[in-house]
């Protein structure tokens, strides 16, 4: 599980990070002293889990939850047990850790998070995390089928058990595989250029020896996929 830590107290961040390092399945991507910085990060980087402090100046943990769309799963960390009832009004919150956090209690919270994330990852529409209809694609995110205009997709990246679908308007993270989504996309428009990337050929800005620039993303092109890419381009 990719996670981030948001806490204005350096001591708390260090403790949570250390506790995370004892769990093989946890990968701490970043630590943030305030929620605003974390929001910017989340716009570009999907995460599975957030350790979130409630008491932070100016922008509290609850402000943060209210602000982000489709929040990932969250474990609240706080020195105040009084917010527990309020905390569980949010579906994204899987547990509530009162500081100082003990190793035993932390491990229990991680088990809860893993259990919840496994359930979320189960497809609601069988074998249809990704389904197409005409020029549109429906992706299943947190039990909602979201409609995406296929030509607006410019990049799809594999991220572990998930794929990130980048469109002109928004990025989506969905529990699926590159292979599954590739089968749903029009062949003339999309090409797998690397084991982790599918690109929209029409969105290519430029090409170098072993990479392509798609919007602002530099994407590697594997040697085996380069001939097909070159064949599909309208070369002078």
């Amino acid at each position, binding site marked *: 599980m990719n996670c981030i830590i948001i806490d204005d*107290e350096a*001591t708390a961040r260090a403790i949570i990070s*250390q506790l995370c390092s004892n769990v093989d399945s946890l990968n701490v991507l970043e630590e943030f002293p305030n929620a605003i910085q974390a929001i910017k990060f989340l716009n570009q980087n999907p995460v599975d889990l957030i350790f979130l402090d409630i008491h932070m100046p100016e922008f509290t943990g609850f402000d943060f939850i209210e602000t982000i769309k489709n929040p990932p799963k969250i474990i609240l960390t706080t*020195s*105040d047990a009084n917010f527990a009832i309020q905390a569980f009004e949010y579906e994204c919150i899987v547990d509530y850790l009162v500081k*100082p956090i*003990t*190793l035993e209690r932390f491990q229990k919270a991680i088990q809860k998070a893993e259990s919840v994330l496994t359930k979320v990852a189960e497809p609601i529409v069988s074998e249809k995390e990704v389904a197409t209809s005409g020029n549109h694609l429906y992706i299943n995110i947190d039990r909602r089928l979201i409609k995406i205009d296929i030509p607006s997709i410019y990049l799809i990246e594999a991220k572990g058990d998930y794929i990130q679908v980048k469109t002109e308007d928004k990025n989506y993270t969905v529990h699926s595989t590159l292979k599954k989504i590739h089968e749903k996309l029009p062949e003339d428009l999309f090409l797998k250029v690397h084991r982790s990337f599918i690109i929209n050929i029409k969105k290519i800005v430029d090409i170098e020896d072993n990479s392509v620039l798609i919007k602002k993303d530099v994407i590697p092109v594997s040697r085996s996929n380069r001939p097909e890419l070159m064949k599909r381009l309208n070369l002078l």
Partner: protein
Amino acid sequence: MEQEQPNLSYIHNMSGGDKAFEQKLIDIIKLEFPQEKEVYYDNLVAKNFKQTAENVHKLKHKISILGLEKSYEIAVAFEENLLEGRTDLFQQFESILNTITNYLQKI
């Protein structure tokens, strides 16, 4: 009443024997505690009690990390005091801060 003394039991327990981490955490506390204390005093002097309560809330974590259980209860009560605009427990809280300050200078 004799002031209870800080200890490193929590840090030892959660570190899993990682001595480098223990030292790193102590260094962070040594750096962060005086800063938090200073902000607390600034807000207290300015009679900005809501902010002062926030500062006490933040300091509570370090009080608990250093194993000061009774002091933690005083901090909880003082935080509530401040939110009601009262400073009844100021001196007791000050004594806790002094104890921690002295302890951090020794370790």
